[in-house]
């Protein structure tokens, strides 16, 4: 019987013996229960499969759209001071993020810049999930006063000035923009808002269409970015194949960390699946930067998402209403969403301190110490059981200093290349 057949047989055996302790034996260096093997298998990068298509963006798989998107992504002219591009904070040589606690554009942002790889797999973007597609996400920073500080009429005019041919190749004829005010937007300064309100509806819609298409082309470019396989993936593969020698790709300390990740540390409860995230929102009591004005996270993100004219159900989306399941069945009345933030992927996590939604922690050890302490939330309610708390269902996370070192070592095995498809 080959090694794969042994794994399958072992799993089948568990199915019929209902919970009997089974371990994979043979030539493996490290033994895992069949349940653990199933979990390891589910965490392999290849389980993510091809990037799911975004029905709200009809252009995302076109190479000409991606080429335009790449140019827009790197173009600092698309900002109020001519110095801020998407790439300023999402830097190709820094995992498409910036390594800073807060994004730094025209001003200083309020949250940590997120990397772009894996975005196509997430139903919601940003730490608070206020966007439901990569193209809609890409629009937000352009008009954020702390980021590009631009406005959509000026942006549309800049696209017309510098990218007319490539834009029209992808999206068809550009509208006439010359007679419009230079600066107008429904989200800008009072003057910009007044100018926007004064524009006829059809002009506003034409500008919005160009603005949305900027996002759609940037999303087509971002779609070419993905995570590559890490040492952990090779270890999981070797374990499934019954290849003990292959398991040596992880040190004994890293394997101890992996065992903690799956069990005592409870990390895998939220950091699950091939991208090590459940794509959901949780309040884990991460301390706010300003305790007097704590970030409301998902609770505000939900409101913004529902009001967003660029969401899946909006007129600039290419999806049919029934393709917007996440929005149709959005959990809007869950009190647990107050001060909850999106579970970030742990792929390449060791390469991008600082951590949490506002860069609260500078090292992985500090992050792990936070979970070991499980402090009360300043706003909302932490899902974590507190040390010593007698809770009917939940268990507190208990980690020794040595456990924290082992877990941090394991997290380093999740680092792989950033792949840019051509």
């Amino acid at each position: 019987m080959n090694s794969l057949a042994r794994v399958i047989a072992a799993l089948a055996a568990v199915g019929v013996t209902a919970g009997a302790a089974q371990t994979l034996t043979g030539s493996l260096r490290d033994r895992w229960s069949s349940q653990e093997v199933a979990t390891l298998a589910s965490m392999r990068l290849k389980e993510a499969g091809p990037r799911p298509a975004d029905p709200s963006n009809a252009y995302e798989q076109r190479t000409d759209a991606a080429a335009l998107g790449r140019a827009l992504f790197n173009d600092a002219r698309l900002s109020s001071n001519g110095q801020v591009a998407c790439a300023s904070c999402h830097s190709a040589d820094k995992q498409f993020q910036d390594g800073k606690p807060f994004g730094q554009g025209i001003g200083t942002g309020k949250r940590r810049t997120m990397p772009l790889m894996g975005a196509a797999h997430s139903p919601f973007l940003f730490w608070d999930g206020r966007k439901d597609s990569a193209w809609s996400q890409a629009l937000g920073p352009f008009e954020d006063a702390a980021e590009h500080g631009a406005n959509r009429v000026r942006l549309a005019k800049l696209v017309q000035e510098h990218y007319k041919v490539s834009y029209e190749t992808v999206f068809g004829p550009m509208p006439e923009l010359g007679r419009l005010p230079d600066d107008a937007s429904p989200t800008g300064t009072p003057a910009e808002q007044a100018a926007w309100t004064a524009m006829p509806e059809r002009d506003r819609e034409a500008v919005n269409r160009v603005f949305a298409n900027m996002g759609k082309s940037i999303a087509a470019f971002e779609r070419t970015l993905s995570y590559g396989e890490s040492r952990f993936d090779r270890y999981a593969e070797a374990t499934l194949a019954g290849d003990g020698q292959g398991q040596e790709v992880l040190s004994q300390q890293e394997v101890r960390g992996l065992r903690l990740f799956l069990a005592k540390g409870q990390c895998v409860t939220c950091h699950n699946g091939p991208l090590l995230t459940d794509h959901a929102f949780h309040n884990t009591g991460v301390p706010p930067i300003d305790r007097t004005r704590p970030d409301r996270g998902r609770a505000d993100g939900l409101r913004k998402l529902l009001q967003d004219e660029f969401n899946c159900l909006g007129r600039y989306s290419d999806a049919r209403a029934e393709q917007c399941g996440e929005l149709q069945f959005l959990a809007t009345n869950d009190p647990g969403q107050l001060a909850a933030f999106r579970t970030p992927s742990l792929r390449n996590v060791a390469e991008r301190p600082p951590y949490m939604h506002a860069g609260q922690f500078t090292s992985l050890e500090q992050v792990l110490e936070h979970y070991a302490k499980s402090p009360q939330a300043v706003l909302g309610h932490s899902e974590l059981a507190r040390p010593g708390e007698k809770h009917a269902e939940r268990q507190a996370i208990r980690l020794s200093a040595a456990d924290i070192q082992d877990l941090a070592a394991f997290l380093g095995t999740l680092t792989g290349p950033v792949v840019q498809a051509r």
Partner: protein
Amino acid sequence: MTTLRIPVAFAAVALLGLAGCGTPPKDLDVSLEKPSAAGVYRVALVPPAQAPAINQLHSWKVKLAAADGTPVHGARFAVDGGMPQHGHGLPTQPRVTRELADGSYQLDGMKFSMTGWWEVKLAIEGPQGADKVTFNTVVDHPRVRP
């Protein structure tokens, strides 16, 4: 009342339990057909024939009958749930979107964001009155693929 056939995958995972922190209670009632809390209705949840992937939106069916087994038409449902061991709710807000035939209703927008023990709670408003019911389901990993 028709006998409900629950796919083997869902029945089997209920026996398996989970590694580490998330082990559901040993005596967890995972039956998907039961009387409502006050005994007003008999309620059954019918999962999809093929177990959905983690984070995949999918649909269930709800079968509602009076205590004597007669199918109940025209009921309304409020859906709630979550993971008791993790202290969070459902990642989506599922809804009963329409009544199919014979006291059978379509439950759309279901999604499980992780493996483990999930509760699915229905608050029922029907001709016989209001009642509620809580189901437990244990979501496991799909079969290991090489």
